[in-house]
């Protein structure tokens, strides 16, 4: 059963009760909360995700809770609790979904050390996964969104989970976070694509999440082998260019993009050197994400 099949009032009931149990890739979350708009946003963004069994194991309990500060009683604030501990916030409740998504990422990056975790979008076509490493603001989510609209399978827009055992990439297939000009681009390319309501977030501008493609969610148990690395940089003043990177430069750029390279020790070194050895690497500079997507499609 998917979330789409659950009536809106039942989503609300579970959120305010024992939790809405959802699975994204290998992780099962129990989601609770009382933030206005949370149920609707979840219903939109996670419509195609499977509900987890009521008596099954939960990896993370995540709760988005409203907060009132005594000194600012009229300001709508919220925080995110993970396994009963407040980890994010308080923040304006308009930023609840943004923080909720960060919280889910936090759960994975702090606990899933069976994987080498890179801050990278991961997309797949014809069985070949493209990893796009880069920190916030480099344009990896925008590129991931455009590739998803063009039919690529979305494994993740934020985190590449590379198996330390066999080097494969494990999907999360979660919503893609878009900001400002990237939102306008998505509306232009796919006006009817389901998204959460845009929110004005201090320091970020306008933010929304894009529903992952239904096929990507349906195939979220299907791993893919990484076939290329594209270190991306969005530059408004530079033409789109794809330049080969040496293995040495790829390794030097990949290490700082890892969440848990140091924590993994020798297993991290093995996993990352295997990844770099296996994949041709490129530096992708772009100002136009559609042009960048076409360029990337020329790789496969």
């Amino acid at each position, binding site marked *: 059963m998917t979330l789409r099949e659950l009536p809106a009032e039942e989503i609300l009931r579970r959120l305010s009760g024992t939790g809405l149990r959802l699975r994204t890739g290998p992780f099962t979350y129990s989601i609770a909360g009382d933030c206005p708009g949370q149920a609707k946003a979840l219903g939109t963004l996670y419509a195609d995700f499977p509900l987890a069994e009521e008596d099954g194991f939960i990896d993370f309990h995540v709760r988005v809770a409203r907060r009132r500060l005594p000194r600012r009683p009229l300001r709508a604030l919220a925080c995110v609790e993970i396994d009963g501990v407040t980890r994010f916030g308080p923040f304006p409740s308009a930023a609840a979904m943004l923080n909720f998504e960060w919280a889910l990422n936090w759960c994975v990056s702090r606990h899933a050390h069976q994987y080498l975790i890179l801050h990278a979008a991961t997309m797949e076509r014809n069985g070949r996964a493209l990893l796009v490493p880069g920190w916030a603001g480099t344009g990896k989510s925008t590129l991931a969104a455009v590739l998803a609209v063009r039919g690529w399978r979305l494994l993740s827009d934020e985190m590449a989970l590379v198996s330390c055992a066999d080097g494969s990439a494990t999907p999360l297939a979660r919503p893609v976070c878009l900001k400002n000009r990237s939102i306008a681009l998505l509306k232009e390319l796919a006006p009817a694509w389901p998204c959460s309501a845009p929110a004005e977030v201090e320091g970020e501008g306008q933010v929304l999440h894009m529903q992952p493609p239904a096929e990507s969610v349906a195939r979220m148990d299907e791993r893919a082998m990484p076939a290329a690395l594209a270190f991306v940089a969005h530059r408004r003043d530079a033409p789109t260019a794809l330049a080969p990177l*040496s*293995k*040495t430069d790829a*390794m*030097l750029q990949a*290490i*700082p993009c890892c969440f848990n*390279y*140091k924590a993994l*020790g*020798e297993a991290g*070194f*093995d996993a990352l*050197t295997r990844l770099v*050895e296996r994949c041709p690497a490129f530096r992708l500079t772009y100002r136009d994400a559609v042009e960048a997507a076409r360029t990337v499609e020329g790789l496969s």
Partner: protein
Amino acid sequence: MAVTTGPGAAGPVAGSGQRWRVRPGPPLRWQSWDDHSFVFDPVSGDTHFLDAAAAEALRCLEGGAVLGRSELARALLQRLELGSAEANVDRYVGEFITRCERLGIIEADVDAA
């Protein structure tokens, strides 16, 4: 993570009377591409980035070798197939020893002192 770009930066030059070896414990892990190497040290958990000369110098000290500074300089000259006129090698080796000792990759052989 510590990434080291060769011995490069000048520091105190290691004493010429001492002998040096790779620190005891689990062996270093290597990955070399072109003229550069990444060396993972399982003891510290650090990854070091070495140029070709530094990589050769470190390899001279692997496998139980214990070398003094001048011996290491001679071995490096041989490995790099440089002429004996390369006087800079001695200074280079001194800086290499200082840097690698600071990083815990090599240590003075107290038994030989």
